């Protein structure tokens, strides 16, 4: 393990190996692939939020000159309700099929119904207008309160709530009820001297990746179908697409393009199965690219939430009880991350008595997809707002109160296991000791602190490292690089082999050229694929030692390997890596290291953020004037990219807290499906985002790595929310804190 280890390459800020291509525009993303004979696919989308499709007539569209193929839900072979795991909550294949192309009912504004392939994109669009659909418009359900009411219009006549004490007899919009507990919640509140309780609301927010979904596909009858697409997980694309289309996995090759952002939103499929149907029917390669309107209307955002949280504490600051009620919008089909909200909400705290209930609720909006630590930001916002309120009630510093109740090694989590070593205390201390925390506030400013927790996952990764005769090598891995992870792979392999990183080229191979690797998400890549890279590199070293041993006619144990050189300990001969590789043909063939692992022991990453805001009392505008993100990385392989994850998560969370939301008309039509009005932070909105990397090594990774990608989006909602509350002296409960809302709070009208 790595407590006091000195690294040769780990911890440096190398230039990423794919950098040249990225800064010159040469890197190829989802929409950058063209094939000979290619045609364009476009999708007809529902103009209604909730309607029955009474009839569908594609005959005029089919007859339009230049139209080559049309696809509808009827083109899926019969699909079962087999469960599939997605990034955040489980879903079924049937739901996926109905989301990709609507069957019988449209369930949200923008729901895909028909796809048309034509010689040009313009012709395809013209043909969409020739499709005749007769709708019976139904009343839409647009929020959890309405959806959960007994008389609510139902999205699915066959949805019966799971997780209730008694099996229900009436259908509902509540898909699942979850419940988790520790200790005795009533006893916990009975012990408390101070109780705080409040309801909160967070809006639907989109991951906001700048690159829309895109794919270029070719269906071949001889079984060589190919999909090029922008995705976080090309093996998952292969699996979902093959299942939807009744294909064998061996018939479908999926190539992951470079990806222009995902954040969880590209862990499912929208276009790929549709494009393959069009390619099959037209006999041509098909390219499909979403526009921004489609991305915002029809791809899965992060869930909106309502929550009720109640906390109790003794006068001495011991929190004795934490209770919660969460209802998350799943969108049109079940599968919000509310269970993950239940698992994470109270987890930064070592409290004996906890109770939380969570409801997965369908509404007439786009089916949600994973969004960076799915389910955690919503619930943690509410909890952290109240912990800050509790601190005020108890007359305690908010960091100090958290330190007193912080989860640590041995703390019992609400979802079952006790923690191994974790770094929340270290993060809280770093926040407390930071220059930011010592800085005094000015007039009209407020400060908020918040913590956050994410499990991080391990899972399956496969790596091969092929060494060339000149001592250079290729690291063949299968984790699409969404943030610079291939640079870390290069460094971890270099460290394990004792050679310069520049000698090794990391590539992300397609589904036929590398063994199965789970998708890039869950903060798993540097941890799990990194672990596989290290194991494959160690395999290379073992082989190199054996080759050298055979050249010198000694045993491998008599060969020392250091800094890229093999030394015969029984003699004095030396061979460089290049020399061993040059002779590989004669000593057994090309040297190729391999690892196929299912990584376990992913270490959780805790984060603590500090936010100072200044509020303009006349306009309600909130400016973030100072921001510090503290987070435990275990061991930062490439510090700049770790900082980048902290800063990126903070920016998304700040946007969610201050301005991002979906605006719907009374009929459920989305009104702000563009970057002008779905306003994510721009360069002039933010200050420099200071970062503090805490390193409490994860004993289960050879270099101590903890995933860091997700935890950073969790604290900002509470940190910003409480900073505003503190600046204006009025309770904040609803996000986003856009100027009209802040002004209303200031003026006392809520």
């Amino acid at each position, binding site marked *: 393990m790595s407590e006091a280890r000195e690294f040769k390459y780990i911890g440096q800020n190398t230039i990423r190996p794919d950098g040249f291509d990225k*800064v010159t525009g040469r890197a190829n993303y989802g929409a950058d692939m063209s094939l000979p004979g290619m045609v364009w696919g476009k999708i007809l989308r529902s103009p209604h939020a909730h309607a029955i499709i009474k009839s569908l007539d594609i005959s005029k569209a089919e007859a339009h000159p230049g139209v080559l193929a049309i696809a509808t839900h009827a083109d899926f072979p019969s699909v079962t309700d087999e469960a599939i795991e997605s990034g955040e909550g489980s879903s079924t294949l049937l739901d996926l099929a109905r989301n990709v192309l609507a069957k019988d009912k449209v369930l949200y504004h923008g729901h895909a119904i028909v796809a048309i392939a034509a010689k040009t994109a313009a012709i395809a669009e013209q043909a969409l207008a020739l499709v005749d659909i007769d709708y019976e418009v139904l009343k839409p359900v647009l929020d959890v309160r309405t959806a959960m009411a007994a008389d609510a219009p139902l999205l699915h006549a066959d949805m019966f709530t799971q997780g209730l004490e008694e099996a229900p007899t009436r259908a509902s919009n509540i898909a699942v009820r979850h419940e988790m507990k520790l200790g005795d919640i009533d006893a916990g509140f009975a012990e408390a001297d101070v109780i705080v309780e409040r309801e909160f609301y967070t809006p639907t927010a989109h991951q906001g990746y700048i690159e*829309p979904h895109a794919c270029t596909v070719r269906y071949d009858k001889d079984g060589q179908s190919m999909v090029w697409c922008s995705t976080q997980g090309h093996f998952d694309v292969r699996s979902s697409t093959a299942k939807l289309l009744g294909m064998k996995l061996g018939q479908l090759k999926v190539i992951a393009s470079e990806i222009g952002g995902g954040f969880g939103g590209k862990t499912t499929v929208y276009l790929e199965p549709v494009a393959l149907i069009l390619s099959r029917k037209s006999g041509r390669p098909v390219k499909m690219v979403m526009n921004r309107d489609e991305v915002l209307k029809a791809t899965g955002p992060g869930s909106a939430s309502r929550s009720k949280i109640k906390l109790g504490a003794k006068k001495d600051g011991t929190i004795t009880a934490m209770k919660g009620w969460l209802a998350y919008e799943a969108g049109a089909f079940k599968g919000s991350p509310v269970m993950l909200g239940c698992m994470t909400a109270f987890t930064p705290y070592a409290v004996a008595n906890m109770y939380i209930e969570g409801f997965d609720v369908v509404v007439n909006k786009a089916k949600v997809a994973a969004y960076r630590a799915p389910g955690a930001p919503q619930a943690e916002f509410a909890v952290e707002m109240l912990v800050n309120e509790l601190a005020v009630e108890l007359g305690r510093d908010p960091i100090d109160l958290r330190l007193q109740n912080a989860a640590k090694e041995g703390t019992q989590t609400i979802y079952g296991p006790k923690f191994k070593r974790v770094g929340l205390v270290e993060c809280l201390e770093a926040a407390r000791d930071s220059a930011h925390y010592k800085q005094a506030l000015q007039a009209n400013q407020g400060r908020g602190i918040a913590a956050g927790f994410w499990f991080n996952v391990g899972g399956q990764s496969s790596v091969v490292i092929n060494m060339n005769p000149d001592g250079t090598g290729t690291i063949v891995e299968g984790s699409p690089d969404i943030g610079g992870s291939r640079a870390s792979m290069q460094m971890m392999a270099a460290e394990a082999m004792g050679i310069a990183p520049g000698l090794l080229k990391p590539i992300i191979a397609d589904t036929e050229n590398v063994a199965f690797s789970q998708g890039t998400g869950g903060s798993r890549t540097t941890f799990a694929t990194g672990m596989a890279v290290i194991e494959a590199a160690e395999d290379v070293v073992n082989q190199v030692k054996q080759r050298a041993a055979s050249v010198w006619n000694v045993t491998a144990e008599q060969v020392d390997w250091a800094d890229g050189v093999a030394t015969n300990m029984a003699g004095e001969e030396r061979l460089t890596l290049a020399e061993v590789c040059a002779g590989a043909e004669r000593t057994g063939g090309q040297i190729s290291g391999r690892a196929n692992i299912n990584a376990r022991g992913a270490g959780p990453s805790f984060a603590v953020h500090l936010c100072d805001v200044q509020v303009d009392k006349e306009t309600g505008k909130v400016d973030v004037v100072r921001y510090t993100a503290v987070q435990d990385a275990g061991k930062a392989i490439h510090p700049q990219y770790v900082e980048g994850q902290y800063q990126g998560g903070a920016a998304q969370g700040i946007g969610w807290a201050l301005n991002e939301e979906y605006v719907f008309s009374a009929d459920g039509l989305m009104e702000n499906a563009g970057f002008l009005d779905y306003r994510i932070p721009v360069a002039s909105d933010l200050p420099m985002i200071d970062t503090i990397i805490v390193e409490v090594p994860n004993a289960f990774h050879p270099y101590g790595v903890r995933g860091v990608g997700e935890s950073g989006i969790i604290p900002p909602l509470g940190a910003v929310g409480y900073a505003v509350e503190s600046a204006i002296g009025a309770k904040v409960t609803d996000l986003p804190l856009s100027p009209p809302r802040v002004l209303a709070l200031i003026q006392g009208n809520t």
Partner: protein
Amino acid sequence: MMAKLHITTSINGDATEFLCEPHDTLLDVLRNDLQMTGTKEGCGSGDCGACSVTVDGRLVCACLVLGVEAEGREIGTIEGVGDNDKLNVIQEKFLEHAALQCGICTPGLVVSTQALLTLNPDPTEAEARYFLAGNLCRCTGYDKIIRAVLDAAATMKGAA
């Protein structure tokens, strides 16, 4: 179907001709007709800056310019930045400062930064942030981008 129009232009100093429909944007032409995919589409409505190019030296969103407007003009795209195998200072600083994670916004930002530093070789942090406010980045939170831009400015000034 309307007849296509024949356009004569210059892109990154190369004389270029293409055919396009009247409604095609410069972005469509660059990416689909000329296979110059370095310029990216993020929104198609001029709100994200991923398609930043210059027209006669003026920074614009290619999705808001019609292909026919390229007639007789000088177009500058990311493909024209730096030499064939040599990065310019801005590109180097972006890499040095890790000012990109997924990289989709990077071509647009490099073109915009070049336009900024041509107009204002010594911007303050605030000036840089406001000039680049039209280039959205979802990955980085802008911190490292701004550092790269200010460092590029300082380096270019020092070399001047």
